[in-house]
């Protein structure tokens, strides 16, 4: 898959949440808080995403003892670039949506 493909919501929010290093539960809480309670990452989904992100080098686990649950994760420069690219993509989506859909909200409710 090319770098221009959309990130999943979970991946995008995980990257955003890691402005400071966090452990898994911290990521869950931060994402829920950032999204106003809308996005609640479940443990299995988060675990899989963290593994994929580590493999891709977008985040790294900070050195430390113990299992994944006790590890903290840090965003890498590559991860930051991926989040920035996604932001540009989302801005394009939002701008086009606003242009086309502005004023049509009443129609949608009819």
């Amino acid at each position, binding site marked *: 898959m090319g770098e221009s493909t959309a990130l999943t919501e979970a991946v995008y929010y995980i990257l955003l949440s890691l402005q400071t290093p966090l452990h898994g539960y911290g990521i869950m809480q931060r994402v829920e808080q950032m999204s106003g309670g809308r996005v*609640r990452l*479940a443990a299995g989904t*988060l675990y899989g995403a963290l593994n994929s992100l580590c493999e891709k080098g977008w985040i790294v686990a900070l050195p430390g003892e113990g299992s994944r*649950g006790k590890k903290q994760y840090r965003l890498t420069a590559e991860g930051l670039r991926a989040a920035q690219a996604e932001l540009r993509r989302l801005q394009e989506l939002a701008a086009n949506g606003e242009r086309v859909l502005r004023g049509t909200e009443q129609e949608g409710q009819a």
Partner: protein
Amino acid sequence: MNKKVYKWFWAWQADEEEAWLAEMARQGHALAGVGYAAYEFEPCAPGAYIVRLELLDALPCTARGRDYIEFVESTGAEYLGSVLRWAYFRKKAGEGGFDLFSDLDSRIRHLERIYWLLVALTVMLAANLCNVAAMLARFPQEMLLRAGAAVEILLLYLFLRGLRTIRRKRNALAAERALHE
């Protein structure tokens, strides 16, 4: 007093099993432990717990399995035990919902994990049935072989139906995934 219930669910009935465990919790019996076709419940306030089960990627006794279980525990869930690769977790219902998967992709991956486990078991069963059939050809009067073959044919039929159930669930999610996450 803890309550012990013996009940059997097939691998393709994980949703039904979760629904049954939710119904038990609603009636004031929180799952506290598991065994082979056995469930131990402890008294709880009606609906106090949400119970989830998952076919793990690795056996719970391996490093990878333990790592995952500890990760889920670190998010505030309680690990209740496991049967083979099936792990059981619960969380207090008041703590705002409990799910192991929060997007379609991970739900699809979980169903595929169940699917391939069933495929492996079905192949083993079919291979064994071939052996039994070959032996039956040599000893057609052997009652034990006949009974064995009958049981295996029945199991094979059940497994194939189970595979179809899982495939349908997976495809329904994949169709949804084509539209949104």
